[in-house]
Every structure is written in structure tokens, then in C-alpha cells.
């Protein structure tokens, strides 16, 4: 089987959550891939499944959720089939994750240095107290004063500083992939710019790939090489950042780009009519069809396949005929 991404290749990923309201089909066959050292932006609105995708890649989906189908090939291994023990040796070592709310993802009763040391100790199988020289290097690398911060508790740090600590913790083990789930949404714009600059600089230095989950098209345009657009649990479009902004193909991507206000733009914003569907009872066929201005009969019946329209530009939409169908597994 040929992989589309050398580092990570997710295919037909389906995740459901069993709630009292019924089964929430959060991911409905997500396709996603990355090469080493690449920066992929995963964008979409609330409930599109971008965070669930990242959690599934980390194998952090917990009850009542479940990965039902699909493959997550990371570095040659299918993570879906790995035992929890083996997964523990990958998680936090070969791939790590940083979250949206840095202050609530740090342990409030442990000193910052100890928390970073834990990750290093685990990957190198040494004692935490022996990791401190490395912890100091890491803190310096993320732009903090190690002497001051190493013995601080998270409440003594500002939001921006906490996010720097999180990034330090994530990169301390030199992972191949760093997943950043809305790393700057809780921060002010000036601090956001600092953090993005830091992520950029460190990724260059350490050569790790970054999967950046965000809803902010501006952040994507500035940071990412490739973009995956998600809608209601499906991958709808994938292309290089330049291509996607220049020539979005999927009606949803186009709508999203036109809805974003920006400085220097005074024409009327075009909104996408309707709202994001309820995933307990998603629309049949293409999940975007009730909101799509170009919906055809077939859109209501069948889910469009995710196909390559032009080199390295994939779309799931019947408006476009692919060069060749994306692989049919099985």
C-alpha cells in the first residue's frame, strides 16, 4: 500500500461518541497525511472534528468515544492496532501535543521544572532529578529565564509564559510530530505573534513536523505549508497553503474564506447560510449539501470521495472529477 505522507497517514478514520442523545459520529472517514518536517494546518468550525482527529492520532479518545474504523500509520506503525503499553512509548516521546488553555493543561501543584523533567525522564529512562540540566536548556530555548521559572508553579506564570512551558514540555523529547491544538486562541494577538514565531523557530531548529489545529485563517496563512479543511467530521479539501487561498475548490472552503473579515477589506462579508449540522443526525450524502449553493441530486445521496483534482490538491465534492479515485482500501 502506498502512503501519501511519509510521517503520518490517516485514512478512513471513523470515531463515534456514545451519548444519551444517541451516537455522535464525530469523524466520518477522515483523510490526513503529513511528511516529516512539514507544517499542516487543520481548519474548520466548531464541531468539525479537528480536535477529535488530533486526539485520535494521539490515541487519547476515551469512553464514551471509540475509534471504529480506519488506519493511523505513524512512522510505519499502525497506531490503531498498537497496545496501550507500546502507545505509551510513542506518546510524549515520538509525538507530543500542546493544548489551547495552557494554564489548565499544566498541573497546578507541581513545579514547572518537574513537569518538563517528567517527559524527558520517561523518554530517556532516567531519574527526574537528573534531567534538570536539560530542562534548563529547554526553558532557555523557549525564551524563558530558567533560574526564575524552573521552580515556579503554573499560577505564577502568565498565559504566554505557560504556553512557552507547554511548548518546551512538548519538544523536550525531540518528537517527530508536535500537535498544537489551538495553541494561541486563548492569548492576545501580540502574544500570539510571539508564540507562533517561537513555534516556527523551534520547528526549524529541531526539524519536527507541526500539526496546527486552528479556526483562524490568518494563523494558517502565516504558519502552514499545507492545509486540510474539515467539515462535520469529513476532510473536504487539502492543498498547499498558497494554492488553497488562491483557488479554493470546495464550496465550503470558498465560503469560509469569504466570511473572514480582514484589515483593508471593505467589501461585504459573505456568510455561509445555515448552521453546522448536528452530528447525531447528520445530513445524508455530502454533509455540506444543505448549506451548499451548488448542491445537486447526487450530493444528497452519496458521500463524495476525497480525490486528487490536480497534483497535491484533494477535494471531496461532486463538482470536480478526480484524476483517479483515492485508494479504495480492502
Amino acid at each position, binding site marked *: 500500500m502506498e502512503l501519501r505522507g511519509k510521517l503520518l497517514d490517516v485514512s478512513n478514520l471513523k470515531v463515534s461518541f456514545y451519548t444519551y442523545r444517541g451516537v455522535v459520529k464525530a469523524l466520518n472517514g477522515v483523510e490526513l497525511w503529513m511528511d516529516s518536517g512539514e507544517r499542516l494546518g487543520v481548519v474548520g468550525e466548531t464541531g468539525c472534528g479537528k480536535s477529535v482527529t488530533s486526539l485520535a492520532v494521539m490515541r487519547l479518545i476515551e469512553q464514551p468515544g471509540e475509534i471504529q474504523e480506519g488506519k493511523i500509520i505513524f512512522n510505519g506503525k499502525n497506531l490503531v492496532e498498537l497496545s496501550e503499553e507500546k502507545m505509551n512509548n510513542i506518546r510524549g516521546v515520538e509525538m507530543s501535543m500542546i493544548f489551547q488553555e495552557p494554564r489548565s493543561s499544566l498541573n497546578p501543584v507541581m513545579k514547572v521544572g518537574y513537569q518538563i523533567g517528567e517527559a524527558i525522564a520517561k523518554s530517556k529512562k532516567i531519574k527526574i532529578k537528573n534531567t534538570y540540566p536539560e530542562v534548563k536548556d529547554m526553558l532557555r530555548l523557549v525564551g524563558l529565564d530558567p533560574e526564575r521559572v524552573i521552580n515556579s508553579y503554573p499560577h505564577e506564570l502568565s498565559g504566554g509564559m505557560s504556553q512557552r512551558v507547554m511548548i518546551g514540555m512538548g519538544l523536550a523529547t525531540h518528537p517527530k510530530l508536535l500537535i498544537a491544538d489551538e495553541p494561541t486562541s486563548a492569548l492576545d494577538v*501580540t502574544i500570539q*505573534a510571539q508564540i507562533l514565531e517561537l513555534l516556527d523557530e523551534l520547528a526549524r531548529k529541531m526539524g519536527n513536523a507541526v500539526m496546527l489545529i486552528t479556526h483562524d*485563517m*490568518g494563523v494558517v496563512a502565516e504558519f502552514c505549508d499545507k492545509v486540510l479543511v474539515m467539515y462535520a467530521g469529513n476532510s473536504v479539501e487539502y492543498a498547499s*497553503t498558497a494554492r488553497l487561498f488562491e483557488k479554493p475548490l470546495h464550496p465550503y472552503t470558498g465560503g469560509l474564506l469569504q466570511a473572514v473579515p480582514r484589515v483593508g477589506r471593505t467589501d461585504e*462579508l459573505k456568510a455561509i447560510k445555515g448552521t453546522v449540522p448536528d452530528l447525531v443526525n447528520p445530513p445524508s450524502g455530502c454533509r455540506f449539501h444543505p448549506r451548499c449553493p451548488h448542491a445537486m441530486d447526487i450530493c444528497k445521496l452519496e458521500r463524495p470521495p476525497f480525490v486528487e483534482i490536480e497534483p497535491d490538491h484533494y477535494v471531496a465534492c461532486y463538482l470536480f472529477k478526480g484524476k483517479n479515485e483515492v485508494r479504495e482500501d480492502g
Partner: protein
Amino acid sequence: MVETLIKIRDLKTYFPVKKSIFSKKLFVRAVDNVNMDVPKGSTFAVVGESGSGKTTLARTVLRLIEPTSGEIEFEGKDILGLRGKDLLEVRRNMQIVFQDPYNSLHPRKLIKNIIGEGMKIHFKISEIEIRDRIASVLKEVGLIDDHMYRYAHEFSGGQRQRIAFARAIVLKPKFIVLDEPTSALDVSVQAMVLKMLKEIKVQENLTYMFITHNLSLVDYIADKVAVMYVGEVVEMGDKTTIFKHPSHPYTDLLMASNPIPDPKFVREKRLMKGEIPSSINPPSGCRFHNRCPFADERCAREEPELREIKPGHLVRCHYPL
């Protein structure tokens, strides 16, 4: 000459901080010496990062928080001394829409009662008239009259924000504070809500104070802009002037930090160093001097005045750009 709807002079809102009974009394200077004229019919944007005092300013203007000192005039009348009936009338004219529509609507009241409550206080009209008015307001904000018999949890975020806005305009106010009205919404929904706000403003002859941290929204919706930093206004003027020629280094860097959704746009990398200082103990001199790339020792010593560098363009800086 455009009429001024709201005139703010030397406004200060301080909050006391309790440290210990022996220490000196400390204050959070949330709003410090703000002067502002909001012209009638304008959309006046107040921009700033967290802790800049933009929300406190708006709430003080509405007298939801009492100021420490200063003056606020609404249509030429001082509102700080008002009581009873007069205050009630001013309150009707000044409404607010909050940031988070998930918390600002009562979960156990029908939409009809949420929107209608104000009318029972301010207007002497019958139940039927109230119902008709609610129906027409709901239509105006893009909902249907049947929605008045539902509860808030039955609506999406965008719809809830429309309801919150309906509650504000139902009393026929002249002035509405919009406190980050779209920051809890997705972009596609945000676009619709912004459009509605723009349309209704013209129909109802409203004046907006638009509080936000998002500069892109300001360019879309505002006529005038005030940029706040640690309780003070650092730059104020027409939107076009401020966006084309930002004169305060803070405004300039704030704009440089705003991500642009266009990969072809290559910016010079200019980052603001440091973090926002505390408003309990703001830096001496110019409050921005420790983060400013152009600061010298004069900035650390002497506090700059907010002065007019061009007609209608005010900047608080010794060395405007």
C-alpha cells in the same frame, strides 16, 4: 458639525485590591483618565488586549460600574448624578450586548420574557402590544415570531446573539455597547451577525460602541477607533487614519501582530517584546515604554499627554511615528 452623543471627561475607574491591613492601599487602575467623544450615529470601536480596560470603560459608561471620578454626559446631560426616573430613562437609551451568548440569556425563561421584560418596566403597554413588538423585533434580527415561545438552549450561538441583540433594540435605545459580540462565534456565523448589526444600525438610527480585540473586525464595522493600553487611550481617530497611518508604536505593533489570511502577504517580522504590564503598578512615564522599540529615557520619566497631531487624530506618545 456632528452632534456628540456621549462625552467622557477624565474618567477614572479604580478597583481596590486588598493585600493586608498594614500595606498601602492599592488600586487596579482599570480606566485611567479617559477622554472620549462618541459622535451620534457612529460606530466607535474600542480596541485593546486583555487588561486594557476596554470592558470596564464600556460598563462605566452604562453606569453598571460606578466611576471613581470624572464626567459622563449623554446628549449633553450629566448622567453620573442621575437617580430614579431620570436614570431609568437614560438606562432605556443605553443598552448592551455581552460577549458570551451562552451565559447572557436566562436559561429558564422563555425568549418572550427575556426580550419583553424591559418593556414591562419602561413602557406602559398591554400584553398584546408587547407580543407584537417582540414578534417584529425577532423578525428584524432574522428570527421568526414562533421563536418567542422557546428557551435559550434551543438556539445556536449565532441565534442566541441575535436574541441578545433583539433584547437590546426592543426598547428603542439610542446607544448600544457591543462587548465582543462575535468572539464566541464561528467565522461563517460571525459574518452574518456583523452584517445584521450594520443593517439595523442604519434602520434604527443607532450609535454603537464596539469593544473588540480583533483589528480585522474594526476595519469592517467601525468609523472611529480608540486604542487602549493599560487603562489609557493611546491613540484615537478616524478608522482610515489609524489604519493607514498608525502613529503610536503600540498601535503599529498591534497591527503587525494581526495575522493576515493571505499567504502571499509577506510581512516584515516585527514582534512586540514582553507582556502587558499590570494596571496595579503601571510602568513609570509612558506605560508602553518597556515594550516600545523607540523608547528612550524621556519615555521612562515623563508621561506623555494625549495630544492632537492632526485634526481629529490624537496620540499619547512623545515621538509619534
